[in-house]
């Protein structure tokens, strides 16, 4: 990836020579195609790995591949690598806030999952021992 990066810088300085004003940075075609085929390859990879039963690793692997793909799209297609840092900060902050949202909500869900009513017709008093509280009572 670092290799690609340096090439791009060259490509851009080349474009500047053609008299474009300061803010237009046309992407070289070879780079667009490279990124596209990389994305396609990763898609095949993720479909392929889904054939195997990898247990919990499957989620991790799928999401890892998805994140690499998303990174490629954002960095190259969306041109973020050469963009103003503020734009990168904006999109990264959105991801941070999404993780905050998911994180707190999940943290809560872990705590109450076991207090959910599984058998609505059961006698309430049978369930009078709380299980889910993360604060365990002293033994």
């Amino acid at each position, binding site marked *: 990836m670092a290799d690609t990066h340096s090439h791009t810088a060259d490509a851009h300085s080349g474009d500047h020579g053609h008299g474009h004003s300061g803010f237009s940075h046309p992407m070289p075609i070879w780079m667009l195609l490279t990124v596209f085929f990389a994305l396609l390859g990763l898609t095949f990879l993720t479909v392929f790995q889904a054939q195997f039963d990898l247990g919990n690793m499957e989620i991790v692997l799928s999401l890892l591949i998805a994140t690499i793909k998303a990174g490629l799209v954002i960095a190259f297609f969306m041109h973020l690598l050469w963009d103003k840092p*503020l734009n990168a900060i904006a999109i990264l*902050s*959105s991801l941070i*806030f999404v993780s*905050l*949202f998911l994180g*707190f*909500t999940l*943290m*809560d*869900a*872990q*705590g*109450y999952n076991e*207090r*959910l009513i599984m058998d609505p017709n059961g006698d309430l008093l049978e369930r009078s021992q709380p299980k*889910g*509280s*993360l*604060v365990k009572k002293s033994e």
Partner: protein
Amino acid sequence: MSAVTSPMTTTVASPDKSPEHHYLNHSSGFLSWALTLDHKRIGMMYLAGILFSFFLGGVFALAIRIHLWNPNLDPEAAWLSNATYNRVFTLHGAIMVFLFIIPSVPAALGNFLLPIMLGTKDVAFPRLNLGSFYLWVTGLLFFTYTLFSSGIDTGWTFYTPYSIESKSAVEAATLGVFILGFSSIFTGLNFIVTINTMRPPGMTWFKMPLFLWAVYATSIIQVLATPVLGITVLLLALERFIGIGIFDPALNGDPVTFQHFFWFYSHPAVYIMILPAMGIISELMSVHSHKGIFGYRMIAYSSIAIALFGFLVWGHHMFTSGMADVTTIVFSALTFTVSIPSAIKVFNWLGTMYQGTVALNTPMIYALAFIFLFTIGGLTGLFLGALSTDMHLHDTYFVVAHFHYVMMGGTLVAFLGGLFHWWPKMTGKMFNDTAGILSAAIVFVGFNLTFLPQFVLGTRGMPRRYASYVREFQQLHQLSTIGAMTLGLGLLVAGLVLLHSLFYGKKAPMNPWGGATLEWECSSPPPHDNFSSPPTVGDPYDFTSVEYDGKTGSYFKKKK
């Protein structure tokens, strides 16, 4: 010029009688307003709209208080039936929150002032700005529709599962909120871009007036939090249309999840409401004390800090709703982090008055009332942030009193202060200062009389949203109702003072209060393009060169 008298008394009509060219008479006709791209006209249209919403919300508030004069122990003999009462308090909350407070300062005052204070000609996206206004109007229409159909009785929080099974017009209300959310998002987005890319030469970040810092912080929240409200109410509407079940316990969904979704927006929304008000107060305190703001950077940073911390504390609305214990405690700890930046601001405002020249005119009286009321609101937040006391106070009148002290004693009073402060700039007319001070005094007394008893009510256990109550609470409720009437009277006086000025007010000078920010360097009202010559950007709180000119009744900046 040595004698510093109140600018009010010495205001003289402008010597040249030729009709002045400004944004109000730049063009005429209905379409010139309806299709305008001028941020000032859009701001004025917002102002008219939100004042109308405020009136509507206020009528509902008075209806609530009148109804609660009696304990209504026999629902059939009560003035309002239980179902009507529920609709009244819901509409009061929803209109005040979504249609009034959230757009009040940013959309109305912010739209008018932001480009002028920044020294630009307009916001970055004028069409989007007009679009946000029409989204707001559409939202208003949806709410008006609910008003004339079966009302809405879910409380402004739309808690599931009640909002799923309610027979009232929840769909219209949620779609209204969805649309209003996008109006808010686009306003925030517009302001962020304007401040980031359109500052003129000399306007560095730390030369920006604190009002702009506050609006910037607000805009960050609007952009980051409001989309979550959008998806939440969309899912709620789908829940009613096709029964998707995500929030519906009957379909294995979970109501507490809805609360997480809702408060992820609605807690930061509290800061959407209060941050711009704090910005106004920063301006008012320094201008009317004729003195540079105390600790500029701390106020600026604390605005951003409040905006960011505001995202970490939404769980404190859910302490009793059955969150996991660990989450509850973490949220409580985070809640206290927000109290510190707010405290810093109060101390800094007081520091600004120290050794200044404090002009006790209407905007300043409102600002001082704000400090008094907001401090009470902030301190009572400590009771609710602490877990064990919150267990007792949650969902009681204590909470009602607390957030009215913050939202109304804070935002509304600051909004009124700001309105009086910038009124001469916006309309070109001076108002009667004595009558203005009277209105501030009545509002202050009425407000405290309304909500101080509610702290006691809440602590004694009076739950909120009750159409009837046990008899022991009656005296306190009646006290509160008397206060509400007084408050209504004060607001009426304030409205009359402003209306009166429109027709009989003297012509406002360029800089009646002695402000050093850029909006005081263009004529009142401002010309269509804001400045007839490029403004010199300087320190917005440098009052050393601001001098009073007795002849014009205006302050001016001495050339160095």
